[in-house]
């Protein structure tokens, strides 16, 4: 472990502050709790909110998985996993089912989560009303009053102009019938996984200094209209590697003539399926 630094980098005082913010966030699902975010040795915008949450909750017996774009081996996921291996000396894994804490950027794993697991989301912009109103002082009042009409107007305008809602990721959700929340830039494909999930879902925005949460088994509804119900992305082919018909696919350009290949973005899920197929 890294000499000269506390377990999991942050001092215990800061961890306590973070855990208190988490408790408040869990008590008020979807509400953005301001917290005294610290400068981390990784840059803002690269997962400092998630890293502080993980540092705040991780213990010696935890098993950590870190993914970025669904993959364990993307450079930033590697960097964050190493950070905790170095500062906390905890076990790390790529297996979703074995992890107690999963820190993620832009995806929720395809393997269903279980009770007792915690997913930590890295959040760039926590405020769902930000593109309607840039001022924090205004948006906080709008949340207090449940004033979310602007979002519906925006979606209505999308439908009039394009025939559909044109938000594809970071698609806003209503949590526990009270607060509208940004689920972080996961594709809307992952939104249904938020609803009634048995795992604890924590969201951390370091630069914007906000923590929020979806406790286990909480109702999370993607905003939509009765006559324009929420839908997710679909592909007209399965994963080229494992044949999964139901996972989120990345598009890979394989040559300079525009040949494309579609493969699972969740590399661990894909590998697990391929191995199972090979074993048959």
């Amino acid at each position: 472990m890294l000499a000269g630094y506390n377990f999991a980098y942050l001092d215990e005082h800061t961890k306590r502050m973070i855990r208190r913010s988490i408790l408040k966030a869990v008590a008020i699902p979807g509400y953005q709790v301001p917290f005294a975010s610290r400068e981390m040795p990784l840059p803002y915008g690269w997962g400092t909110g998630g890293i502080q949450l993980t540092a705040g909750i991780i213990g010696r017996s935890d098993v950590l998985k870190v993914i970025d774009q669904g993959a364990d081996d993307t450079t930033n996921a590697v960097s964050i996993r190493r950070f905790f291996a170095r500062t906390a000396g905890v076990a790390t894994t790529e297996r979703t089912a074995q992890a107690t804490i999963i820190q993620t950027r832009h995806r929720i794993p395809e393997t269903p989560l279980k009770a007792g697991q915690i997913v930590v989301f890295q959040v760039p912009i926590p405020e769902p009303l930000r593109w309607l109103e840039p001022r924090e002082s205004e948006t906080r009042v709008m949340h207090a009053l449940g004033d979310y009409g602007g979002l519906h107007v925006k979606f209505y305008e999308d439908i009039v102009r394009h025939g559909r809602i044109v938000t594809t990721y970071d698609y806003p959700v209503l949590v526990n019938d009270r607060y509208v929340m940004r689920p972080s830039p996961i594709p809307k494909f992952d939104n249904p996984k938020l609803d009634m999930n048995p795992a604890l879902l924590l969201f951390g925005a370091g630069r914007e200094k906000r923590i929020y949460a979806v406790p286990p088994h909480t109702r999370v509804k993607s905003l939509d209209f009765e006559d324009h119900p929420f839908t997710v992305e679909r592909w007209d082919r399965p994963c080229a590697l494992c044949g999964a018909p139901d996972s989120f696919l990345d598009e890979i350009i394989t040559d300079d003539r525009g040949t494309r290949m579609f493969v699972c973005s969740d590399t661990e899920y894909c590998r697990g399926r391929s191995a199972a197929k090979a074993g048959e």
Partner: protein
Amino acid sequence: MYVAVKGGEKAIDAAHALVASERRGDPAVPELQLAQIDRQLAGAVDRVMTEGSLYDRELAALAIKQAAGDLVEAVFLLRAYRTTLPRLAVSLPVDTGTGLVRRRISATFKDVPGGQVLGATFDYTHRLLDFALAAEGGPTPEPSAGPSPADPMPRVAELLGRDGLLEPAPEPAGPPRDLTSEPLEFPADRTCRLQNLARGDEGFLLALAYSTQRGYGRTHPFAGELRIVDVAVEIVPEELGFAVGIGEIRLAECDMINQFKGSDAAPPQFTRGYGLAFGQAERKAMAMALVDRALRAEELGEAVSAPAQDAEFVLSHSDNVEAQGFTQHLKLPHYVDFQSELDLLRRLRRATD
């Protein structure tokens, strides 16, 4: 077989090794020593200490060396270290009216008690490249004797304040807030704003200050006083009950005096803008003073219309550690979101075909 995102671990290790080797450069050229950076690149050290919000010349020099001279990166290194330090004590407010004044100018009075002291400044140098400096070991001129600490030099703002022509220094409502241990929230009081500006990016503040001079939130400023001063830092340990000095720091302080015709909220008087920076970062201190005054628009009953008067806009974007991180995070992979957008775009185009 798809391998594009594989090999992240190896790539990172290789990148670190490459950084180290490029930082060192040609081994035939002697390696930079921290003392050289501290003494000979003092302006860089001052800026990194100010925006890194840690007064430690040696650590700032180390950060500059490690960042290969990239000052914003050095600020980030220093901040990330600072945040791990325990808070042992809170000092008494430093008194910039005492201490050894290295430089002190006022643009509002021809002469002031204690006099004008030009000090070490680039101000009246002709910006001609000095090719003699390129050769090592040239003679250095001896400086003439500077001011002695015995000369009293009251602050110009205090002299004006006695006549009631300058507003009294605004008193904070409570103990100053500390943005390093609590989040920035709006409306932000002045202690909070000043701390944010003191840590803020010099380039950002400079541009904002300049915008007020060009009419975007004009403040009619005069440089009441600019001083560079070495001040003692004192704390009162609980077990002692009296103040003890723990060291000395150099500060650049600017009192901007702004013409003000009065409003519903305040009578006609001169108003203040205040800037403070570590070392001799006087351009930063001046820019900060102009922006501080611009941000007082609401309190003084002025119309808030320009970017420099908008506290949420200024304070949310002044921090270069935050700004550089978020701007550069666009380098991280975004292919999942991009795939969703591709999917949408294809559907939209299919619908219009």
